[in-house]
């Protein structure tokens, strides 16, 4: 690095000073208090925090994208290279967007206009800010598509968003954001919606371009693994305030603030503790299970999707068996077959010695009691208009248990899942995500199931809440003898809670074994790639040190 380059890279691009944001209207609630953040050229500053910490709000304030109807900045300034974006004219603000500061979003699936071709959408940036002729615009867009390593830029240029994968769409969004070489790039959870292997590539791309253009990056994330991999500096936010700022190593090795310590140490390690193998009765066994979706069409070839092929597994009582894999690996299909939401195309499912596939009458009905499921999204899996207590006892009353009796059981379950008995009289919206997931667990347990299927049951939760729910599941299997089929895309969570792990890829089981064997000494190439892509895999968060 020459001195001139060094001087440039030391230059502060973004300075947020004492930023306060409140809900519009007199006495509106304060959402951000006194936020100070500084980002230098060529540097990635990560803003970390849990949901509601105000990290995204900060990002949108910088871009001037807060909805003026509902939010307003009450104090402070945001200096973008000495220009206060809070006081510039709307016209100037529009000029600054995409030329000096850009934004990439969390959801690549919805960030692009579905009815316009990719090329035209990127060209729009040039149409707004430059006076290039059509041919130059096309050339510049194609060059930039090349720079974000999209294969066959010509084809991508003429495609619609729905014809691209999530990772490709995120590359398009990055291309759009960086085509005018802005000084500041704001990335709002840019990889949260992507699979780990895609996430790894996108992070590498952001790193590469950021170094090439010497861009200052404000990187919003909830994931400490990502922080380890990309951050130069870290800003920790909680409830609208900055609680700690420091270099990556300072925050990860020796956090001073209690909240930061709690947050960092809640991140599960990728290396599982050794556990004793759970032996004893097999409660669920699956043999040669396949689920093949065939869509027959007239005058066109049928499409065949092999969602699950020849899957075998056994689950013991009191055992937690993890099924891991990326989206589309077939792990949810397997779970849906187990609980009876899908009928398998082939294979056997045996629950405590009883065949379930093609079961009729009582056995068919009983499976819906004996196998219960906890779903991913605690915000949508409870009926918002029904009191929690009623939701919980609906299952047993369907099976003929008297109401009063079921309600008594619900009360005792509240204690088990760590909620007050009064929760039964309230409605779902009065609870946080973690509490709702506890309610969902109670709803499943009241049926006294033998198998509990948890489909990404902690994926939508913040790490600190996640840690508590995992502890709860652990204690439940101790107390109830239930066998737990734990489906997750998150290897850290699997390492934290599972006794044994099954790895799925493209509908097939590629590896299975004890959590330690699979996650520490993987034999299959796909498992290795999966572990390798896990962000921050060389860091032991619980003990504040590298592995």
């Amino acid at each position: 690095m020459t001195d001139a380059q060094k001087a440039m890279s030391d230059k502060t691009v973004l300075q947020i000073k004492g930023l306060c944001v409140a809900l519009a209207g007199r006495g509106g609630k304060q959402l951000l208090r006194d936020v100070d953040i500084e980002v230098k050229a060529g540097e990635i500053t990560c803003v970390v925090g849990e949901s509601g910490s105000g990290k995204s709000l900060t990002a949108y304030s910088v871009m001037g994208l807060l909805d003026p109807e509902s939010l307003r900045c009450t104090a402070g300034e945001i200096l973008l290279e000495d220009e206060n974006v809070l006081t510039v004219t709307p016209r100037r603000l529009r000029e600054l967007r995409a030329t000096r500061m850009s934004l990439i979003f969390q959801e690549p699936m919805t960030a692009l206009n579905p009815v316009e071709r990719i090329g035209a959408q990127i060209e729009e940036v040039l149409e707004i800010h430059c006076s290039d002729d059509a041919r130059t615009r096309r050339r510049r867009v194609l060059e930039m598509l090349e720079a974000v390593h999209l294969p066959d830029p010509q084809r991508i240029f003429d495609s619609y968003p729905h014809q691209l994968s999530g990772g490709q769409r995120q590359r398009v969004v990055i291309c759009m954001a960086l085509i005018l070489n802005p000084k500041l790039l704001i990335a709002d959870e840019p990889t949260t919606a992507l699979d780990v292997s895609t996430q790894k590539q996108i992070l590498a791309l952001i790193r590469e371009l950021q170094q090439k253009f010497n861009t200052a990056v404000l990187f919003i994330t909830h994931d400490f693994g990502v922080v380890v991999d990309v951050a130069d500096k870290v800003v920790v936010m909680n409830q609208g305030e900055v609680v700690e700022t420091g270099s990556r190593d300072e925050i990860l090795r020796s956090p001073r603030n209690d909240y930061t310590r709690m947050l960092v140490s809640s991140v599960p390690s990728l290396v599982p503790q050794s556990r004793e193998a759970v032996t004893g009765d097999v409660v669920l066994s699956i043999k040669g299970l396949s689920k093949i979706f065939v869509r027959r069409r007239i005058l066109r070839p049928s499409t065949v999707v092999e969602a699950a092929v020849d899957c075998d597994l056994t689950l013991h009582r009191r055992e937690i068996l993890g099924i891991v894999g990326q989206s589309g690996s077939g792990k949810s299909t397997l779970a849906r077959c187990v609980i009876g939401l899908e009928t398998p195309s082939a294979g056997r499912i045996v629950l405590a010695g009883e065949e379930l596939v093609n079961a009729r009458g009582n056995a068919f009905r009983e499976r819906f009691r004996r196998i219960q499921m906890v779903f991913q999204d605690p915000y949508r899996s409870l009926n918002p208009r029904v009191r929690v207590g009623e939701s919980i006892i609906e299952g047993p009353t369907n099976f003929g248990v008297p109401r009063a009796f079921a309600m008594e059981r619900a009360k005792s379950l509240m204690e088990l899942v760590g909620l007050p008995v009064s929760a039964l009289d309230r409605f779902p919206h009065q609870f946080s995500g973690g509490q709702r997931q506890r309610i969902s667990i109670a709803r499943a347990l009241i049926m006294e199931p033998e198998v509990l299927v948890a489909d990404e049951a902690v994926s939508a939760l913040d790490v600190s809440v996640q840690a508590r729910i995992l502890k709860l599941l652990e204690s439940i299997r101790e107390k109830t003898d239930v066998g737990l089929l734990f489906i997750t895309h998150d290897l850290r969570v699997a390492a934290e809670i599972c006794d044994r792990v099954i790895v799925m890829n493209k509908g097939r089981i590629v590896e299975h074994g004890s959590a330690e064997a699979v996650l520490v000494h993987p034999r299959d190439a796909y498992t290795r790639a999966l572990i390798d892509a896990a962000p921050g895999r060389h860091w032991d968060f619980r003990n504040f040190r590298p592995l």
Partner: protein
Amino acid sequence: MLLFYVLRRILAALPVMVLVAIIVFAALRLTPNDPATIMAGEDATEAQLEAIRVSMGLDQSILVQLGTWLQRLATGDLGVSLISGAPVLDLIGDRIGPTIALSTSSFLFTMMVAIPLGVLASRKPGHLVDRALMGLSTLGLSLPVFVIGYVLMYAFAISFRWLPVQGYEPLSSGFWAHAQRLIMPSLALSGAYIALVARMTRSSIIEVKGEDYIRTARAKGATETAILIRHALRNAAIPIVTVVGAGVASLITGVVVTESVFNLPGLGRLVVEAVLARDYPVIQALILLFSFIYILVNLIVDILYTVFDPRIRY
């Protein structure tokens, strides 16, 4: 692929048309009137009536009658009017001009007014302009065509004397003569239609404006007008096109009333005349024609979906 789809849709429409034909036929046979009496008049003798029945095939069983009628339909023979004896096809040909003029002008007027109104209302949901426009649209939806028609007539024809009270002039007698007699009928006929389309435009745009790609467009530095035209409207188009299509049904029923109110010699009036005279062949033909138009409009709507949204492929 699209051509293939259109062909398939037309084939699928045929059974619907046949079903409509059968229902129309059956409904008319259920009314307590004897076509022979209508033709022969009150004073006819029983022998005369019998002769007419035989000549019309009315002595046959109802299924045979239906079969004969469908068979003739298939060859394009819609029969002759019981009253005037003229071929039904000729009757329709004579009267279709005013109806086409009226519905086309109402349709265009609706599009020109309703979509801008919807856009205007969507700019600030819940604010004064929005509430005023949506209040007006509720009024438009609830006022029957004939009420709007007579109010307009009283105001513009009788009080101000700006426009002729009623009647029709073909385009061949001069554009203004043609147009000035269409203004009030079109306004009356468009009322409910405008309300419907404006409402859907408003709610559809409000919904689209919350989408992520609108935020992306803002982050690109696009102006609000550019966002509206380039990103919001096209994405909002599908529900709008759907109600525009569905609204054609209300246009068809509206035509019947409007033509009567403003004394336009179109198909709507022909329907009324035929019904009052129990002129079965004419009624059957007209209902079939209207349902055919409705099916056609739905097909056009489905094809427009693919134009507005590249994700939809048939």
